[in-house]
């Protein structure tokens, strides 16, 4: 009997075949499955809702435009996140970000919300090479192999950036907290 994971993978393969055949319902279902994760990921990279929504929409448009190239070989998720990341990097490079206030925290105590803002601020100040592994591995729960595939680097390189990134984040957080205390 197939387990949940193989059932999911079979369902995804079917979906990707439908997408390659130009079925608009298929991309709708892919949006239902991955829309939230792509939005959260782009928000973490871009720091504001409007740009994150824009990058998410553009990611799914790219999926539609390139649907004929899709292969149901299990690499779809990493391919999707790679598209989203590249779009975000382009946006950052173009300096076209609209400066918007950070989202109002929806839950948690004031102290926890303030800490969350400080962590996001510290993270955004790190070099992109450190931000990417931290976002993918520590925030979005990707495995080292998946994150390395998205970033198109080796697993040892990913781990080296991840560990250096955590230390840099600690130093940044320390100085930000000292400044605010």
């Amino acid at each position, binding site marked *: 009997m197939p387990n949940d994971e193989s059932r999911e993978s079979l369902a995804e393969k079917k979906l990707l075949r439908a997408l390659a055949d130009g079925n608009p319902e298929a991309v709708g*279902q892919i949006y239902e499955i991955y829309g939230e994760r792509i939005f959260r990921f782009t*928000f973490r990279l871009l720091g504001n809702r409007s740009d*994150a929504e824009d990058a998410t*929409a553009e990611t799914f*448009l790219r999926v539609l435009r390139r649907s004929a190239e899709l292969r149901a070989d299990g690499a779809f998720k990493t391919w999707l996140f790679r598209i989203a990341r590249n779009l975000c990097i382009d946006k950052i490079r173009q300096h076209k970000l609209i400066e918007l206030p950070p989202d109002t925290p929806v839950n948690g105590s004031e102290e926890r919300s303030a800490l969350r803002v400080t962590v996001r601020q510290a993270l955004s100040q790190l070099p992109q090479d450190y931000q990417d592994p931290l976002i993918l591995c520590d925030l979005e729960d990707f495995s080292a192999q998946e994150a390395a595939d998205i970033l198109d680097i080796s697993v040892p390189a990913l781990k080296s950036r991840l*560990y250096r990134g*955590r230390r840099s984040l600690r130093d940044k957080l320390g100085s930000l907290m000292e400044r605010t205390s």
Partner: protein
Amino acid sequence: MNHELHRKLVDLYGGRELPPDVDAILEAAAATDAELAHDMRTLRETVDTLRADSGAAFTEESYQRILQRIYIRGGNIQPRAATPAALQYQLPMLG
């Protein structure tokens, strides 16, 4: 323990990637080494704090705005959920 190995172990400790018995050995070593204890504690706190951030809420409004942007740019997409009436674009009143 050489410096490189020491640093690597602390990195893994910070991310809770060590097996519990190795964790315990490292914690025992930290009991007599204040610098090591500080390095371990602050790194683990940083990673735990980072991981506790659940991210921005994906609201119904964001879900619909993304769909609208896809439609506007010519994307043919059919999600299963219909747009709630409250979130559909309003036409201006004439007259």
